[in-house]
């Protein structure tokens, strides 16, 4: 574990979470959420939780993002908030 990395990634994560929740375009929000997942995956790897990181990369950044995008395409793309 390297605490400098830790802090940088954590700050980026907070920023990504806020952006994902503020963007009005749902496709954009979903993609930023994908970025958030990749950051968190990086963080797990940095903290020594390699199995969790592997799962997060496959599930959080991979499948979750894909099924969210699928839903956005199947429904509406614009959001009012």
């Amino acid at each position, binding site marked *: *574990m390297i605490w400098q990395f830790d802090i940088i990634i954590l700050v980026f994560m907070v920023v990504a979470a806020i952006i994902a929740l503020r963007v009005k375009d749902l496709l954009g929000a979903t993609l930023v959420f994908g970025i958030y997942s990749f950051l968190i995956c990086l963080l797990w790897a940095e903290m020594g939780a*390699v*199995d969790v*990181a*592997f*799962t997060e990369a*496959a*599930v959080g950044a*991979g*499948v979750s993002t*894909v*099924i969210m*995008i*699928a*839903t956005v*395409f*199947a429904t509406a793309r614009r959001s009012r908030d």
Partner: protein
Amino acid sequence: MTMKFFGFVAVVVVGILLLAATGDFPEWGDPHSPASEGQVSSFYIERTVNETKVPNMVTAVLADFRGYDTMFETVVIFIAGIGIIAVLRNFGDGAAHVPDPPEPDEGSDLIVRSTCRLVVPLIQLFALYVVAHGHHSPGGGFQGGVMLGASYILLALACGLPAAKRRMGERKAITLAASGIIIYAGWGVACMFCGGNFLDYASLDPLLPGDKAMARSHSMLVVEIGVAFTVTAIMFAIYSNLSTRGRLEKGL
């Protein structure tokens, strides 16, 4: 507006509550905190390799010490899959739905399709490696299963859903998912027939090569394969239902 205010108050109250507790925690990364130095964690770190001959402690704890948890984790995935089908799947009896124009779903253009054909076997090969090598390196049934499922999703994205459905039809996916859990739970029941408790892999020693610890190691591989079956099938089922609003006709 009231909702925003109420939400803000709730968030502030819970936030203060949670921050109040952090003051009491051991420092981050403290090797002498109760959680890190406790008997349970020490046992996992020091004894896993003697008991199971598996160098990856996470795999050993996941599939053996807490195997009962992992069985239910697989059941959770299974529930999500059949729940999505139960909620969303449209078997086409509703009159409201007008059939799509007869435009065959060919997927994307040639370059994407050819690249995909090239990459999918590699992904699947690597996924199998991840499942099988989970004892020695990061990975295991769940991660490998997601990757296998993702390879089918990639196929559906690039070559169209019908192409992927030819390889993994709905009926086949459900059967595969159910059989994954049957492998897992059935292996546990087999342990009961050999005189142990449920999921007590050591009792299968007479049937498997090697000693008791090796029996545990081999059994972990079996249950990981079961997990991989379920996860592969369900991941693809989730994607195919969500991308077509449950009609399974034409993908993204």
